[in-house]
């Protein structure tokens, strides 16, 4: 559903499940680091990024995009960073052309660039945002939802009455999904910690190439088969990240 597509040819991978070099391993999904996993992420790409605010964001992949300096990105992420961190770094460096998100409060970089006309912005109700991504990944071309009827969100959209009026919203896809999980294995099976899951498993389904970074790369079979939050069929590349900041935006403690 996007005009541009990532190349079908994947960069070099080393698979620890076989111990051999690229090409001989079973799944060829494991990469050494963000640089190796993202060599073909090009300027102009449509990129989804998981995370809610700064919770569960793909820190290492974002840092690599910053280092690479790819430009004219379309970013699809709930908040496009916050407090100058996460994707907000790519805003500051002028790498973003268009953003699709649901909430930008606490992100002055985005606000400033939007009012200066330096980027375009599509605000989507958060539930519709999640559902459009899920639809894009699940082959559902469009759906009718009651959210947004009678608001600016309805402008230009088909309205149809079921038990109540609903808007027609379309599926959303991307060239790349950049996500972060707590644990993952060589097939790309992922497990997320606490509320860090949010949009990431949905985005994994909706991109041509999903790159997952994990805090812990674990051997196949380590994750209980019933409790895999994102099956590896949705993940094309995986690497173990490092130096996670895992910032808490508003750390509020119990009153003593």
């Amino acid at each position, binding site marked *: 559903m996007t005009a541009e597509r990532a190349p079908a040819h994947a960069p070099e991978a080393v698979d620890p499940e076989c111990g051999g070099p690229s090409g001989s391993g079973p799944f060829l999904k494991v990469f050494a680091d963000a640089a190796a996993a993202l060599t073909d992420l090009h300027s102009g790409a449509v990129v989804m990024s998981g995370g*809610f*605010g*700064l*919770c*569960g964001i793909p820190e290492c992949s974002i840092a690599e995009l910053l280092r690479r300096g790819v430009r004219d990105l379309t970013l699809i992420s*709930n908040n496009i960073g*916050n407090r100058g961190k996460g994707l907000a770094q790519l805003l500051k460096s002028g790498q973003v052309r268009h953003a699709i*998100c*649901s*909430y*930008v*409060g*606490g992100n002055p970089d*985005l*606000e400033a660039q*939007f*009012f200066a006309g330096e980027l375009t*912005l599509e*605000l989507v*109700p*958060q*539930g*519709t*945002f*999640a*559902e459009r*991504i*899920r639809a894009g990944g699940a082959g559902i071309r469009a759906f009718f*939802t*009651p*959210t*947004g*009827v*009678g*608001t*600016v*969100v309805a402008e230009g959209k088909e309205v149809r009455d079921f038990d109540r009026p609903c808007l027609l919203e379309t599926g959303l896809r991307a060239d790349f999904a950049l996500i972060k999980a*707590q644990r993952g294995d060589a097939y790309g099976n992922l497990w*997320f*910690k*606490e*509320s*860090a*899951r*949010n*949009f*990431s*498993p*949905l985005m994994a389904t909706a991109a041509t190439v999903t790159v997952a970074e994990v805090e812990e790369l674990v051997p196949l079979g380590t994750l209980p088969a019933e409790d895999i*939050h994102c099956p590896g069929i949705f993940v094309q590349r995986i690497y173990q990240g490092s130096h996670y900041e*895992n*910032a*808490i*935006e*508003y*750390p*509020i*403690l*119990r*009153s003593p």
Partner: protein
Amino acid sequence: MTHPPSSDTQAMRRGWSDAALAAEVARAIPPRSVVNLGIGLPTQVAEYLDPAACIMIHSENGLLGVEGRPTQATLSPTRINAGKESVDVRLGAAYFDSALSFAMIRGGHVNLAILGGMQVDVEGSLANWSVPGRKLTGMGGAMDLVTGAQAVWVMMRHADRSGAPKLLARCTLPLTGVRVVQRIITELGWFSPNGTHFEALSLAPGVTLCDLGDPALFRGGQALPSASGAASGASDL
């Protein structure tokens, strides 16, 4: 996101304090409800819930069962609410992805949403996400919540910082939802939008109908002295 600073304007001094307001709302929530608390004033309601009432707090970032704050020892960067504040969870809590979280909301599984508001009008329409040209925030999950929750309460100050009324004949700011609000609670009392006016369901101690603003917009309701009366209304809405 952060709690609004306490104000010392005249309007703020009349009626309930922030804490009393939060306690008032907490008492009014029917036991065993699943409740989503918006950012700002509504978040504070969590502090006043009776644990025996077994209210489950839903946070749209993917968490059901928020309860209180962590200690330094239990603080976790991956355990946050929709305001991105650190939280703790109760026994029986569950984490899930955003699609399932909004399936809970849109599918009518959340009993009550308590949201902040900029404006509510007599038809129950709500504006709480945008001041055009002045500030860019985004609607977040508010449009889904007002559409999908079984009942919607708005918890806000009676007037804005400049003293302008927030309960209006017609919202002037971009809407979050049309005819979606069943109850409004401000520091002055409980109100129900009735299509042509606001019915005052109960008033804070010392507050009279004359304190509410434009007399054409407010009417005294059937006597509703207790918070439990307001609560029983919630399950009907």
